[in-house]
């Protein structure tokens, strides 16, 4: 166990009261408690308020393009399976612009931990509907209310047999830390959709709103049971379950790639001379 201070970096540029602070603190505490050193993990993010997180925690960081965190993370995780690779990014980033990568990262089952700061809004660009915005919520660009069905990341992940599927809430930090720890310990792609109030642009899904509704999935819920997990994932409204909905033990992509069987790619030496023989195939 290390001191959490070791994990602090730049001062966050978030709004006072933003749910992101709790998330950041929890993540720092998690890393400290697990004694994972800053250089032992990499955080990849896209663009948005959430995506600024890697600047606020000491880590290796790749703050990439809006929506494109997962492919970058996949590239890192495949090349260096010894690195703990996490993605911290927003709901718009991950489920909107990056939706296709979300699907296919789940299918690949690379060892990436995906922490989505789900504030049900586009924060950084000042309040447009995101895929998770509640139906009917009006914004400056959704004058008739958000008309598309609210995106359900958990149900979708379970439908794709995602290796680890959970929901947390930044107002419940201890539990969130437990979920993060479990996700990190899990071997496989792990999604935690984290309810994170945006105090500036989401006046509906506030701290109070979530607090009134969230509850922990109880012991009777078996995360191995995909049907039960799916049923639970559909629950939203007056009560919103948090916890580990689903987990399985699908093999890791990287375990199935022969070039990785001996050691991470990044550690393998290269000898140009040895490759030149390939020319013989063309005679």
């Amino acid at each position, binding site marked *: 166990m290390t001191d959490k201070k070791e994990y602090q*970096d*730049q001062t966050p*540029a978030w709004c006072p009261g933003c749910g992101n602070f709790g998330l950041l603190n929890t993540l720092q505490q998690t890393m400290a408690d697990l004694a994972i*050193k*800053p*250089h*032992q993990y*990499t955080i*990849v993010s896209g*663009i948005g308020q959430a995506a*600024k997180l*890697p*600047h606020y925690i*000491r*880590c*290796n*960081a*790749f*703050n*990439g*393009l809006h929506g*494109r965190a*997962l*492919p*970058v*993370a*996949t*590239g*890192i*995780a*495949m*090349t*260096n399976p*010894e*690195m703990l690779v996490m993605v911290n990014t927003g709901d718009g980033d991950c489920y909107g612009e990056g939706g*296709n*990568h979300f*699907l*296919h990262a789940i299918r690949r089952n690379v060892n990436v931990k995906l922490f989505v700061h789900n504030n049900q809004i586009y924060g950084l660009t000042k309040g447009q509907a995101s895929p998770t915005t509640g139906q009917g919520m009006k914004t400056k660009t959704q004058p008739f209310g958000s008309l598309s069905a609210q995106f359900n990341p958990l149900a979708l992940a379970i439908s794709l047999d995602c290796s680890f599927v959970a929901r947390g809430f930044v107002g419940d930090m201890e539990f969130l830390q437990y979920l993060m720890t479990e996700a990190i310990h899990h071997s496989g792609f792990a999604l935690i959709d984290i309810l994170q109030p945006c105090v500036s642009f989401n006046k509906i899904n506030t701290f109070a709103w979530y607090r009134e509704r969230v509850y922990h999935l109880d012991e009777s819920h078996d995360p191995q049971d995909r049907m039960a997990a799916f049923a639970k994932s559909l629950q939203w409204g007056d009560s919103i379950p948090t916890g580990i909905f689903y987990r399985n033990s699908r093999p890791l992509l990287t375990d199935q*790639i*022969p*070039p*990785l069987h001996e050691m991470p*790619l*990044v550690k*393998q030496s*290269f000898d*140009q001379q040895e*490759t*030149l023989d*390939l*020319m013989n195939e*063309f*005679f």
Partner: protein
Amino acid sequence: MMKKAAKIIFYRGDNMDYSIKIAGEAGQGLQTTGAALAKIFSRLRYHVFTHQDYMSRVRGGHNFYQIRIATDPVTAPRQAVHILIALNRESIDIHQDELHENGVILYDPDEVNDKLQGDIFLPTPFAGIAEEEGGKKIMGNSVAIGAVLGLFDIKPDAAKDVIRESLARKNEDIITNNLKAVGGGYRHAREKCARLEHFRTDAPGDEKLLLINGTQAIAFGAVTAGCRFYSAYPMTPSTGIMVYLAGKSKKQKIIVEQAEDEISAINMALGASYAGVRSMTSTSGGGYALMTEGVSLAAMTETPIVICEMQRPGPATGLPTRTEQSDLLFVVHGGHGEFPRVVLTPGTPEQAFHAVNKAFDLAEKYQIPVFVQGDQYLADCEWTSAPFDFSSLRYHDYRLRGEALGELEEYHRYTMTESGISPLAVPGESPHLVVVDSDEHDENGHIIEDGATRNRMVDKRLHRKLKLLRNEISPPELYGPENPEIILIGYGSTYGVIKEVVDLLNDTHRIAMLHFAEVYPFPPQDASGYLDILQAARHTLCVEQNATGQFAMLLHSETGFRCSGRVNRYDGRPFTSDSLREEISAHLQDT
């Protein structure tokens, strides 16, 4: 110093120079037959050049595979065909006109329900002979191979190894029967052909020859350059690169990942590069369009990457299996914001092999995106060539790793340096952190918004590197006399055809080729005298496989030089040396 082609080869005059065309529907095996024939001749140490014409479908339609065999090096297709292997009736109708006056058409009379008269026809029941020899109908392809050998009186044994290799995973019976079919075809041609006297072989060279196409050369080049991660999304005509690398994945320890789309492909490759290995992606124009945002990301984060862009005719889906050079300015200017990049445009498989090597070196040395741009023609054409010269290959690991990194007291990803190049560390190998950001950032890689840091970073990333980069670019190749009156200007895959046209015209004209295999940053004018040579010439014709003359524009915008004329082709078919010669001659007469 201006690079000169080693020797001026003279156009072959009376030397052996035949073209064989195999034409038919997709799915009739013409690719296998063509490839085998090409290999047989190259193994015999003849020079071979092949090109393909195929439709965007898997079965049916009309395709062909054309093989040129000669004792001298051949670098382009010709118009006239000496042997046409017509796998269906349509192929005769379409290609009969192209037949050389002494040529011969092989067809299967059981397939083509028509009696075709005259010496030019050699009815050859491909499937029938195969069956007679104890094999199956499908072995008709081997009969065709045998027949070609028969025309030249090359003993069927010459086909043995090639057939055996191409059927490597089949059982011995199948191989034996195919070899018998070759024999049957051979005897049939020797016995039945009325024009045997027109087919003769000269003695081949002594040198062992490679036979390799553009995508193979690129992929092989990537392996030898230390590429360890390749992610791409299939797209003609770049897919061959992925196929080659996937085949080498296990042995050469290269991860080959098919991405869900091109956006993912380039971002994955950037992730791998960030993690510490050399990485590459390839695509064609439409996929490159989707990658441009990622190119800009590579530039901002200063993450090395090699991108092969293999062109095909656009816009949009265009003619997906054909050739064009119409993405030049898009590759030169693609990506938002301003940043340095390199664009290499090799003209031959051999040049492509070396270009990829240079691309990996420059990408890592300068931490920038480097492009190797080709097209369907370069991708699919097979060339024979002397064994590649490995002596000029580069490999230097510019990354800061392990102990060397650990020993540093401090590490900042974007340390300000005089060269603009900051140390590129591998994350995880020491307590130093590697922080990169697509926003403007400080030396630590953290977001900034102030103007002063922005200015310093633009200077570092763009201006300083650009200054050094210009010196990395090789001048164009002048082929022909040093004081040409006529210059054919080209870049990329038109190398071979322009060269041949120079050979065709150089007894009557003081003509040369000026070929640019590295186009961006544009080769500096000072060191080599190419601009003087251009200015001194009377005719400067820019030959391009596109409709708007993009290279002529680039040449003008970079040097102020305007070509006196342009030759453009944009129907998706390559120039042949004959068609280009005619166009050039017409041009010269007009002026």
